[in-house]
């Protein structure tokens, strides 16, 4: 009986719900922070899908502000793997890509999805591993021989396994060595980006194939030595490709073309050549002026 009374009491003395007050306060908060977003203008928005290795190197943060100043086009950079970047462009979700897997790029261009393929720079892939180098890959005469030595000694090797340009290069080297390490107990697939894969190789003291920029950026915190990098096969070239507006309607082709033209311009190429000199006492990228060796 008393409980029923309490219920009636609640009906009679009901105050404005505190939850309502909270929701109103949150709504007000959302509105207050709201105007800080410019909100993406549908026109003039330019979406660049690129690889994590390039985005994380910091090169684009140095290159893009000058482009935005002169052209008034803001560039939205999305860092994914090469495979995903090309898939995004095919769906019209990226206006251009900067990727590093020549075979996939050619397939993309031949399929009619990409135009204006221009190589903007290259650096090298390197094989890193424990300083002791028990597989003695430092003595190898080629990248394929280095991989064969790792396989022969059954030393731990960490693979990206994420469809990235680095993984595609790694597969190419295994194929060149006539080996298929998949399923071997010394062959570990991380399924992660370059940084995490390097950390994994460091923790387990294994070998891995890495792009030079990510390795140099992280070197101070890794117990991994740069063991092998001399081989034309290890060239890591980055190509910019605009999404073809006739095949994929609705993409911002004018913006993509302007950005590619800027990236191969002498001014941008000079910036690329100088990038990393101060911090690593060697430059991280060599300009390619738009020309693709492959």
């Amino acid at each position, binding site marked *: 009986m008393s409980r029923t009374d309490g219920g009636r009491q609640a009906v009679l003395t009901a105050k404005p719900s505190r939850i309502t007050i909270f929701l109103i306060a949150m709504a007000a908060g959302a509105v207050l922070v709201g105007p800080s977003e410019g909100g993406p203008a549908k026109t003039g928005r330019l*979406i660049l899908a690129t690889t*994590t290795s390039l985005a994380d190197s910091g090169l684009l943060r140095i290159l893009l502000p000058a482009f935005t100043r002169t052209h008034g086009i803001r560039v939205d950079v999305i860092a994914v793997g090469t495979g995903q970047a090309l898939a995004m462009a095919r769906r019209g979700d990226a206006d251009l890509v900067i990727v590093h897997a020549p075979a996939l790029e050619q397939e993309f261009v031949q399929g009619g999805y990409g135009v204006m393929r221009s190589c903007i720079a290259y650096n090298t892939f390197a094989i890193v591993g424990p300083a002791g180098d028990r597989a003695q890959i430092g003595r190898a005469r080629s990248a394929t021989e280095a991989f064969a030595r790792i396989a022969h000694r059954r030393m731990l090797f960490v693979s990206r396994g994420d469809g990235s340009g680095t993984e595609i290069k790694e597969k190419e080297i295994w194929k060149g060595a006539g080996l298929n390490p998949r399923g071997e107990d010394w062959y570990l697939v991380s399924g992660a980006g370059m940084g995490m894969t390097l950390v994994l190789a460091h923790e387990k003291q294994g070998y891995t194939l890495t792009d030079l920029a990510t390795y140099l*950026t992280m070197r101070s915190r890794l117990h991994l030595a740069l063991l092998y990098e001399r081989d034309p096969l290890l060239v890591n070239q980055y190509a910019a490709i605009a999404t073809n507006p006739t095949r994929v309607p609705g993409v911002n082709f004018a913006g993509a073309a302007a950005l590619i033209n800027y990236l191969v311009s002498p001014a941008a190429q000079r910036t690329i050549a100088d990038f990393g000199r101060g911090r690593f006492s060697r430059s991280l990228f060599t300009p390619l002026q738009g020309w693709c060796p492959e």
Partner: protein
Amino acid sequence: MIEIVARTLQVSSSAVIIGATTGIPLGTFLGMKEFPRKRLVLIGLYTAMGLPPVVVGLVVYMLLSRQGPLGHAGLLFTPLAMVLAETILVTPLIAGVTMAAVAGVDPAIREAAVIDGASPGRVGVMLLREAQFGVVVAVVAGFGRAISEVGAVLMVGGDIEGLTRVMTTAIVLETRKGNFELAAALGVLLLGLSFAVNVVLQFLQPAPDASSLRG
């Protein structure tokens, strides 16, 4: 950094507001009303409460992609897309917890209101007040899911600097770059943010004395 924190709060609170304005009425309805096939609806709701964020991210991506059904709107890789994905994740959670709280209110209270001649809407509001403690838990849980979300917002937001980067995606980025100290510092900041929001929530609520714990 302040900009990332502001955007994190903006996106997750927007999702919670939308989730609460739909989830609380839905949960109240489910908590006070019996109807045929209710069990089926509940199974659906419980499943939705455990929706995997990456699946939601993928579905929202396909919807908003230029080739998707809503592609012409140009919403992909915007904060709005992130709000949409988070709303889908938090609404069932808020509805489910609200339902449990409302269903747990002493039946005598409801009967009393019905005897008083209150309309079903009025009874609902009254039950909600009685179940206030549980409803706050629903909102807190929803906010927790929204602010800690990473898989879906990374997919549909793209972690674009100055546009869609939030605390969780910034932590992923710094971890990927090997900056573990910075990533950990961001994690502590995110935790602090969550703490601050919950402090505000607690002060908006009456002290958990006997009357508000009832039911």
